[in-house]
């Protein structure tokens, strides 16, 4: 039903997820507000540039008017994106690729967000403890960044690698020490597929049963609920601190119930909205809507708390700490604001 003269904006993500459904809602709203056509694609295969690139190439061939992409492997994709940016207005969102000639980046800094998770861990267990990190894949750029962020924060140094050792209370348990924390198996546990998340968490937790000061971190949206469920099925959720990432429905529910301590959230709705808004305006010759500074991530806890300001290489950020009800209400409002 698209007419050739209408402006068309393409948004391509790095995988299929609820996170992106929220983003799509934002993008759709912007498309409505600024009267443009939207093509929103979630590549079938998660975090695979060889699936993502053909989609973008096809758009370029169609003479689309603007592309927003969640970069999977910045270092490697830069070259191709640079070439594409010469033909089509391009912005990166959710995951950046500097030097790709993109007009702007809309999103948080995953590494910084990871550090935020680390700070939450430290706050929850000031005396340190045993920590297990669960993640979909450590191969993807955002996965790497988040994990490293957490570990650096715990270790209190950049590019921390930790030290290989046996767990003081459990000689049979190999760990790496980061600051006061012992990382189970010395690495973030990859599930590579949401279906394995719960069983994996379940068997890892089983080995930690009985240890004091337990903390589990889930860095992909689906990880925290999986961890909680596993903990419950082994009745360990009482003695386990769970900290999550992203605004998975179950995670928010659990925070409200006090079963998950906190989660660090991005703003997918804004990613979508601002990407399309910016590109639509740019296509009409107005580059004012291009976003300058990174969108701050936020922390969601049961009752919220004071904002915190931190200094990053990019400058100082103020990070909001929202109570879960407010956050959820905002989220619903955002999604509801999209006309069907």
């Amino acid at each position, binding site marked *: 039903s698209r007419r050739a003269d209408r402006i068309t904006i393409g948004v391509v993500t790095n995988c*299929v*997820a*609820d996170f992106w*459904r929220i983003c799509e809602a934002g993008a759709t709203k912007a498309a409505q507000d600024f009267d443009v056509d939207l093509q929103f694609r*979630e590549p*079938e295969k998660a975090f695979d540039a060889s699936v993502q690139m053909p989609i973008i190439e096809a758009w370029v061939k169609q003479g689309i008017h603007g592309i927003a992409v969640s970069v999977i492997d910045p270092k490697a994709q830069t070259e191709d994106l640079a070439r594409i940016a010469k033909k089509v207005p391009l912005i990166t969102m959710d995951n950046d690729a500097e030097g790709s000639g993109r007009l702007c980046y809309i999103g948080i800094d995953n590494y910084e967000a990871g550090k935020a998770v680390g700070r939450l861990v430290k706050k929850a267990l000031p005396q340190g403890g045993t920590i297990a990190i669960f993640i979909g894949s*450590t191969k993807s750029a955002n996965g790497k960044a988040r994990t490293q962020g957490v570990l650096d924060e715990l270790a209190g140094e950049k590019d921390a690698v930790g030290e290989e050792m046996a767990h003081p209370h459990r000689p*049979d*348990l*190999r760990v790496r020490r980061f600051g006061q924390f012992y990382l*189970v*198996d*010395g*690495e*973030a*546990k*990859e599930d*590579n*597929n*949401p*279906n*394995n998340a*719960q*069983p*994996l968490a*379940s*068997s*890892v937790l*089983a*080995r930690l*049963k*009985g240890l004091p000061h337990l903390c589990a971190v889930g860095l992909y949206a*689906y990880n925290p*609920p*999986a961890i*909680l*469920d596993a903990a*419950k*099925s*082994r*009745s360990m959720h009482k003695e386990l601190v769970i900290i999550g990432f992203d605004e*998975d*429905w*179950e995670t928010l*529910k659990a925070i409200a119930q006090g079963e998950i301590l906190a989660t660090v959230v991005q703003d997918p709705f804004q990613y979508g909205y601002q990407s399309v808004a910016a590109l639509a305006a740019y296509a009409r010759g107005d580059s004012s809507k291009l976003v300058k500074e990174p969108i701050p991530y936020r922390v969601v806890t049961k009752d919220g708390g004071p904002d915190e300001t931190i200094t990053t290489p990019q400058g100082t950020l103020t990070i909001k700490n929202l109570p879960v009800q407010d956050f959820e209400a905002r989220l619903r409002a955002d999604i509801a604001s999209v006309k069907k």
Partner: protein
Amino acid sequence: MTRVLGVLGLLIALYAALILSNPSAGKADNLIDVANIQGRYGLITIGAALVIIAGGIDLSIGSVVGCAAVLFGVLMEGGIPPVGAVLLTLLFGLFVGLANGLLITQLKLQPFLVTLCGMFIYRGVARLLGGTVSRTRALEEHPEFADALRQVRYVLVGKDATGELIFPAQFLLLLLVAFAIGYILHRTAYGRYWYAIGYNDQAARYAGIAVDRHRIAVYVLCSFLAALAGVLLLLDMPSVQSDSGGLGLELYAILGAVLGGCSLRGGEGTAVGMVLGAMVLPVLENLVSFRGLKSDVIPAVIGLTLLLGTMLDEWIRRRSHPRP
């Protein structure tokens, strides 16, 4: 009998290794945990095995599991009480099987192609139905389902209100189904017919067996069991994503069937074998994480173990059946 010795040996070895790997590994709660997953695997493995015995193959299993889970969730969100939703979802399974069976027998399409298309189609259906489903979302809309859902969950997956796993309900369910299927396979005419069809459908036809009808029957059973597994998945797991729910399970199911003594040439396989074959992977995965192996090593270890297992199996079979 010798057909199952190999996989039996493999299982024993794996359990031994597991129990030795870590004091808490042998504890009841862990074994129950494994058994529960084995139960769900086992159900789809039996489905796959039946199709394979009758000389076919079903690649749509994984997508059907996912689609059924999503459908189950969506139905409850839509206000259908849990029990009703379960039944409707199982009905969906029956229809999928009927579709596969009809396409294969009436239009004479290759099972591999038909079910591969099914794999895409039902994945697509799942995604059209919704994004992520979960019990909490359903209860969000319909708090009144809470009790019913809790009971269904307790009965089918053995988890209580707090979500603690009390008993391996899914494994018991597997044993129940396996017994029924085993009876059909080994004690009734239908079983004989399926084997005959798998070996030589021409001879079966000349013997007056309604080949097509029986072919359809096994596909229906297979998809039905897949749908059941989908229901269990949603009851067991915190949530199911329509794009990844059950992804790739068809391979695990077929693997279990083949490990259990089925031959993809058709006509081979026993109910006991199916159950044993299905039990392998969950133990193996549990063992691997109990040994605290690095994530990157795991696939290789799993692959090699399975390979050794099949070698052992073939070796035993050869010893007991020297063929010229």
